[in-house]
């Protein structure tokens, strides 16, 4: 019998995040394989309704506290440490999201446990826990083992099916009474996304540009392609960070999640943070000069070519097709 496994439930503005169900699903499987209990913990303010959805865990711990509205990584790490020591937990799953960044390393530092980042798969073999992590923007995978099945794991979003973590079972909730330390960090307010000229989440056709587009002037050609296709242009992060397109056009982890009927990507490598935001598109076609670009792993059709060689012809051919 293995010591308990703990999932840190993630939520934002009162809504439970999908990553929580992903972790609960794989956590359940791990717990069953290792014959260990599965625990889940929710920290927040007015958070009990969220906890009731987590019946798949054997126990759900809840700490509802006014100071936990948007707790800093310090505060969460301190609470987790106390809980882990009280309940003898050996393995902790935390979301590899912007909301949870920093909690894992802080906890691993305080508990002197290994931290594993970018985790995409977890399994049990001969009683030992193995993990696959994704490195170098998805170009390399790495298998590691956790000595003694102990550690803090940051689970990459989109790695496990969220449905496996949902259950109709009534959650067995235990309210915690832990001291919440005063945080040095104060949360002031949310800053809402600026409304853009167009809403890329509502488009049927998106043409997406990545760093392969090389400079701002080349965007015009892509706008033309989007026009003839009746769609809009969106982009990967570097294009936005360069200021070539507004933030409202960013697809991915920090940007928008889109599900158009067609996602045509040009010079996008397909880093996990980008793929997170577009993998469920109806039809994905990608043009990239690098035959081993991870984007081809999530595309239906791929073209290994220089986008500048293809684009002018493609635009002309579409015009001809439409007028024909």
């Amino acid at each position, binding site marked *: 019998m293995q010591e308990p496994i703990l999932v840190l439930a993630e939520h*934002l503005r009162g809504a439970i995040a999908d990553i929580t169900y992903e972790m609960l699903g794989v956590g359940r499987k791990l717990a069953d394989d290792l014959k260990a209990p599965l625990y889940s913990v929710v920290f927040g303010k007015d958070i009990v309704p969220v906890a009731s959805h987590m019946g798949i865990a054997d126990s759900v711990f809840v700490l509802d506290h006014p100071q936990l509205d948007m707790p*800093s*990584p310090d505060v969460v790490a301190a609470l987790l440490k106390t809980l882990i020591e009280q309940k003898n937990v050996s393995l902790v799953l935390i979301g590899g999201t*912007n*909301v949870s*960044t*920093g909690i*894992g*390393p802080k906890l691993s*530092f*305080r508990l002197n446990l*290994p*931290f594993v980042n970018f985790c995409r798969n977890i399994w049990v073999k001969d009683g030992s826990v193995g993990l696959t992590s994704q*490195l*170098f923007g998805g*170009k*390399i*995978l*790495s*298998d*590691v083992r956790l*000595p003694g099945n102990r550690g803090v794991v940051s689970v990459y979003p989109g790695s496990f099916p969220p449905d496996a973590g949902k259950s109709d079972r009534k959650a067995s909730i235990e309210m915690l009474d832990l001291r919440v330390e005063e945080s*040095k*960090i*104060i949360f*002031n*307010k*949310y*800053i*809402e*996304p600026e409304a853009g000229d167009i809403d890329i989440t509502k488009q*049927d056709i998106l043409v997406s540009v990545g760093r392969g587009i090389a400079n701002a002037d080349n965007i015009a050609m892509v706008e033309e392609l989007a026009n003839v*296709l009746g769609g809009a242009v969106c982009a990967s992060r570097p294009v936005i960070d360069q*200021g070539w397109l507004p*933030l*409202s056009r960013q697809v991915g982890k*920090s940007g*928008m*999640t889109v599900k158009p009927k*067609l996602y045509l990507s040009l010079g996008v*490598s397909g880093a996990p943070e980008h793929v997170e935001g577009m993998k469920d598109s*109806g*039809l994905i076609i990608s043009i990239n000069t*690098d035959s*081993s670009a*991870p984007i*081809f*792993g*999530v*595309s*239906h*059709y*791929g*073209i290994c070519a220089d986008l500048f060689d*293809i684009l002018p012809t*493609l635009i002309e*051919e*579409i015009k001809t097709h*439409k*007028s024909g």
Partner: protein
Amino acid sequence: MDIVVFLKMVPDVVEELVIGEDGKSLDTQSLRMRLSDPDEHALEEAVILKEKFGGTVAVVAMEAPEVEEVLFTARAKGADRAVKLPGDWTGIQAPAIAKLFASLFSSGSQQLTAHTLILLGSQAIDDLEGEVAPYLAEILGAPYLGVVTGIRLDEEKKKAIVMKEFAGGLRGEFELPLPAVLGIQAAEKPPRYIPVAKVRSIMKSARIETVEISPPEIVSGLPVDRLFMPEVAGKAEMLEGSAAEVSARMIEILAERGLIGR
């Protein structure tokens, strides 16, 4: 304000990555190194802060191939000090790197006061146990936030007001007392471009300082069983031929699905 920026070299992932003979590490011979993207933004943010609020910027890097060029470029962009930590750092992992950086402050080479702001990249793509920034914050006992995309300073109150990303374009504003450690995701403006000629001329006039720090005890990292390539070819059907052929085939595919009309 004293701003310290840690700069890390990472393999350029646009190049082909080759797994070494041991099957557990990358073949370093074939790697081309470049400054980690978020670090370029951390440096930009530091220079923007210096321009707005005054003070100094120091950049710090561990010895690595091509690192001097990066340090000189940082000087050309506006950094006042460039520091290299000499040594053979192969195999050193995030917790030990954080200890090494912390000792830079305890050794007196860098001050740690209510005027110190420490910037790192939010996350580099190359290691399993990344996130040196939160480890460093733990050791220094300073507050930390990651995925930061904007900073304002309130020197009177000795605090930083920062913007952090969540998801879907939603961000949050936080206040941290100084000294603080921040993981920068993106600067508020795109990193500035510096002509090579300017870097060349800085190379003649400026100097890279070296600070000798005795290496921390190297704790071995997690046992890596193997590195391998994902099955990329698994899914996409590759279209081949001339631009015209490929375009014609694409139009066919779109037409079959009713995604393109006449």
